[in-house]
């Protein structure tokens, strides 16, 4: 098991008058080598959850196991150094974690800190930059002179350069242009498929991750509202929407069409290509679209 939560609660300012609970009795199982998406409205505890993955936050109740490290509320804090190399965290505003005067130094900082030689670290920096689709010429630039989106990519590269086993990202795609977002999702999927990394991404844009993820965790008010596969989530859509989660159009539209054409039991088609293909099949089998629409319209007016 890559990450397990047992009845984990976390409260900011615990044992004080200002106690505010951010997580309440969360149970989670994330298998090694899976790609998970975490969704939920703002303030539902997603970021707090993520910060437990490499021991930045220690639960105020319950136990967290990450790889082979146990972090419990009642236990002494174990050594975190090794864990932090193996679990790479990219925060909500990754550009705020830049600090060096060149991009190269910034990306090399992590690997050097964890004992890589300078030559090795520089190779890593090049490799990571290329992964993010950034030009090598950026290496000698000052990161603070880059645009917001480029800074974000450099910050993500600096975490990937440490070659972590688990990569957790907190809304990495906000402010990237749409194609860069799609490319980042594809890159994470590649790291997951080809190198067996465990990838966990907090996102507000579920649509971008839908083609890649194995499953979803949906948070609400510090609790897990849902944990399961994409298919199961699509089936639960009505319940999740009632709970205040806004679902992307590809899911709502699929559910509407599935109900209309009796496809509820099928694997959901969530990309324009697959949905159009499926509709073409259904419609060529069951008469033209116009006929159906007329029948439906008639059925409604009658």
């Amino acid at each position, binding site marked *: 098991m890559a990450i397990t939560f047992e009845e984990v609660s976390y409260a900011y300012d615990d044992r004080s008058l200002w106690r505010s609970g951010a997580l309440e009795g969360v149970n989670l199982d994330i298998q090694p080598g899976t790609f998970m998406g975490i969704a939920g409205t703002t303030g539902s505890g997603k970021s707090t959850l993520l910060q437990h993955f490499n021991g930045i936050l220690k639960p105020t109740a319950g136990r967290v196991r990450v790889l082979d490290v146990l972090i419990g509320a009642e236990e002494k804090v174990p050594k975190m150094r090794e864990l932090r190399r193996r679990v790479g965290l990219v925060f909500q505003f990754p550009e705020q974690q830049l600090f060096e005067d060149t991009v190269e130094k910034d990306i090399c900082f992590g690997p050097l800190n964890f004992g890589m030689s300078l030559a090795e670290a520089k190779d890593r920096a090049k490799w990571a930059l290329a992964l993010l689709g950034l030009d090598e010429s950026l290496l000698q630039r000052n990161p603070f*002179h880059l645009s917001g989106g480029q800074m974000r990519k450099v910050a993500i590269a600096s975490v990937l350069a440490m070659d972590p086993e688990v990569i957790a990202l907190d809304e990495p795609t906000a402010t990237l242009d749409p194609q860069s977002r799609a490319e980042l999702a594809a890159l994470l999927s590649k790291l997951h498929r080809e190198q067996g990394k465990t990838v966990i991404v907090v996102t507000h844009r579920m649509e971008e991750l839908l083609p890649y993820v194995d499953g979803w965790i949906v948070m609400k008010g510090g609790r897990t509202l849902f944990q399961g596969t994409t298919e199961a989530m699509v089936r639960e859509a009505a319940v999740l929407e009632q709970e205040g989660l806004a679902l992307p159009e590809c899911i709502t539209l699929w559910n509407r069409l599935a109900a209309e054409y009796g496809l509820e039991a099928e694997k959901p088609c969530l990309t324009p290509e697959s949905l159009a293909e499926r509709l073409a099949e259904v419609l060529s089998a069951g008469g033209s679209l116009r006929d159906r629409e007329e029948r439906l319209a008639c059925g409604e007016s009658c």
Partner: protein
Amino acid sequence: MAAAPFAYELNGVSFAYAPDAPVLNEVTLRIASGSWVSIVGPNGCGKSTLAKLLGGLLAANSGTIVVEGRELTQNSVWEIRPRIGMVFQNPDNQFIGSTVEEDIAFGLEGRCLAREEMRDRVQRYAEKLEISQLLTKHPAELSGGQKQRVAIASILAMEPGIIIFDEASSMLDEKARGELLQIWRDMRGSGEYTLISITHDAEEIMASDRAIVLRGGAIAADAAPVELFEDEELLQACRLIAPYRVRLAQELRKRGMDGEEIFQGRQTRRR
């Protein structure tokens, strides 16, 4: 102030942070008063720089910027800037007050308004953005969407005619983003504001009147959003992806089906 037909007239505007790396090159454009314009383009194409130039936070190296009929210069910037409000990506970065009420009042204090007027405006704009119940809260107690509402209320309370949103929705969840879109639609409908929105969000671009595409520091296209999303090549070039619905309609068309009928079916059923 609908007196000036154009909120902005830019003529050959260029800007560079360093001499060897120009960010904007000879940008010429006009923005009609009361319209809602999206500025789009890939990361690093100069969108935020343009926003800062429009807001008078940066001065152009060459060319002229005319705001509501007055040229933006070192001297006029102080009189023009009150006409312009800016809302940024991360609302946390623009909180100053220790309560929402103080935060909205901060800008008004800077304008030396009478206390009564300030109270009135805080109430009025808090109501408008449905945050009256949050006035006594500390900004840190708010959700992302609420914070962005407070940021907008603070700006609206200054009663500007032009509001520039620099990726103001990018940190919001899907639901808050939908609400922000509605706020923009209402503002556009009121006819009192010129809205300039820097965004990557397909739905937002779709809802606006016009999309100006920047690429490599120059205007690559200036079109109605519908035209933009039908132009595969242009989308590729500015690294945009069309909204799901537009892409689905295209895929259906490829297979000889009419997407419109499917979507219309939805509307009739909704009624």
